[in-house]
């Protein structure tokens, strides 16, 4: 068994930023384990631009954004071991991993950072009816085939789900010569960023059908047709509204799920709302010395936020290794009206500025975010626009936190009077 001060699982943007932050805090023995053959995570297949607007004030592509962090890591003694898959994590922080180079190995870590990212929901996860033919891909898998391996997965395409990956793939397939017939969204609003609706659908006259879903899939070997129907307020298909599309490919962009098999094996408590570990403000899980950041913690839409969050986790892991523990009792965060989750889920009373990330349940205009200590409002933030597809964040300064009396804070949305 080998030993390392800090082991980071996953070499995507989260793992890279966390390792760099820990290095800055004088942790000198850091090992990143990555199962793919290169670092960079999902960014390697996201060849479009739009990354790093917050962080670098420029629009970078995914590989460029990842490249900047990889270059920084190379200037340190942080080790990245690629082609290495972590199979198990124990409660006393022993990792079991396999790689072609080392075979099986066990590694004992002083602290662990979970940065395994997320994976896509599949057809099974949303149970679409119809034939079991080929030609049905998750949008991310099609993205990897096209952008990294160089294979087009089809010529006539329907996309189910209006998440950003689906929208980006609508444009990408169109530019490469495919015909994208429709983008179909179950909800009455799109799950993707408006700029992607404009640049990926409107630019190419691809229709977006809101409040619609796929109700049948037809095809013997390869997909031949999909049937799309309108849905009512309860998301049930309305008979008589069927549209039939002749197509050879259906791409699914129906959401991402944090990849937490390892966390579960270690008995780390998972929040059913985020599908990620329950964390403190320093991104520490309920297992001391184990931290989580990036998409494994909750699904982010902007990689810039992933990097920022991961730096917090890296700094906290360094503090843990240096023997510094956060002080103060627990204050829990509770979701009020309109809020579907918060990260972190709880924090220490003595915390410095608390930055909260959360998602809202609906589209709101001219609404406000309220933070309540029992019945008393301690903060109110106005927002002109909020949507479930866009992660919200607020900062509570220490002066405010010092005034909290109870041990529960509620975050809620106050709708504008109509």
């Amino acid at each position, binding site marked *: 068994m080998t030993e390392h001060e800090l082991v980071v699982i996953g*070499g995507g943007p989260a793992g890279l930023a966390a390792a760099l932050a820990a290095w800055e805090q004088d942790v000198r023995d850091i090992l990143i384990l*990555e199962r793919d*053959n*290169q*670092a960079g995570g999902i960014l*390697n297949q996201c*060849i*479009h*631009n739009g990354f790093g607007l917050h962080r670098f004030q420029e*629009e*970078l*592509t*995914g*590989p*460029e954004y990842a*490249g900047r962090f*990889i270059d920084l890591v*190379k200037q340190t003694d942080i*080790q*990245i*071991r*690629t*082609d290495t898959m972590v199979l198990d994590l124990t409660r006393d922080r022993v990792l079991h991993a396999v*790689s*072609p*180079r080392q075979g099986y190995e066990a590694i004992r870590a002083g602290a662990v950072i979970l940065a395994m990212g997320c994976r896509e929901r599949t057809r099974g996860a949303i149970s679409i009816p119809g034939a079991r033919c080929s030609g049905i891909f998750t949008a991310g898998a099609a993205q990897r085939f*096209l*952008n*990294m*391996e*160089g294979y087009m997965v089809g010529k006539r395409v329907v996309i189910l789900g209006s998440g950003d990956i689906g929208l980006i793939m609508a444009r*990408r397939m169109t*530019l*490469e010569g495919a015909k994208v017939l429709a983008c179909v969204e179950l909800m009455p609003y799109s799950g993707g*960023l*408006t*700029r992607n*609706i*404009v*640049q990926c659908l*409107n*630019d190419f006259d691809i229709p977006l059908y809101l409040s619609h879903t796929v109700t049948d899939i037809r095809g013997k070997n390869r997909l031949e047709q999909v049937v799309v129907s309108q849905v009512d307020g309860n998301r049930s298909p309305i008979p008589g509204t069927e549209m039939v599309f002749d197509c050879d490919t259906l791409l699914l962009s129906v959401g991402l799920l944090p990849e937490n098999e390892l966390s579960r094996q270690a008995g780390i408590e998972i929040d059913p709302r985020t599908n990620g570990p329950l964390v403190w403000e320093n991104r520490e899980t309920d297992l001391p010395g184990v931290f989580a950041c990036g998409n494994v913690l909750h699904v982010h839409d902007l990689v810039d936020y992933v990097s920022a969050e991961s730096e917090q986790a890296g700094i906290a892991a360094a503090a843990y290794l240096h023997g510094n523990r956060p002080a103060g009792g627990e204050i829990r965060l509770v979701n009020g009206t309109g809020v579907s989750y918060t990260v972190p889920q709880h924090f220490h009373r003595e915390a410095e500025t608390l930055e909260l990330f959360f998602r809202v349940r609906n589209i709101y205009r001219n609404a406000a975010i309220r933070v309540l200590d029992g019945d008393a409002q301690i903060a109110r933030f106005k927002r*002109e*626009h909020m*949507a479930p597809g*866009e992660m919200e964040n607020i900062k509570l300064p220490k002066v405010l936190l010092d005034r909290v009396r109870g041990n529960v804070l509620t975050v809620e949305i106050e709708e504008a009077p109509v």
Partner: protein
Amino acid sequence: MKEIICITCPKGCHLKVDEETFAVTGNACPRGAVYGANELRSPVRVVTSTVIVEDAGTSSARPQTPDCDSRTGNACPCKPAGAVLARRLPVKTDRPIPKGKMFEVMAEINRVRATPPIKVGDVLIPHVAGTDGNVVATKNLP
């Protein structure tokens, strides 16, 4: 009047732009007026795509990635000999090009090949499709 959505900020105002005077209504802030007029006068976009990597080679000839041998200095031992290296190089136009030229740019991109070593920012196609944009690499290929 043409109706467009402002994408300058997440609010996504629905703008109405006059085709002749380029006057904008429906914008909640001045940036929307600028966006709306430009979007009608001369809409531009960055194009990103990939280029075929010539002679991608195998791992016995070259290390698999810069990352995996960065500590040992050896040719990468962690990939079985014969495994194919990167097949595609991601690229972008280094500035937004006229929207109407997007497919012309794609056609030119699909005609070129990239031969490693390549560094981020290397120009693969200067003045693509007669625009003032260049197609540049967005990834290092050692």
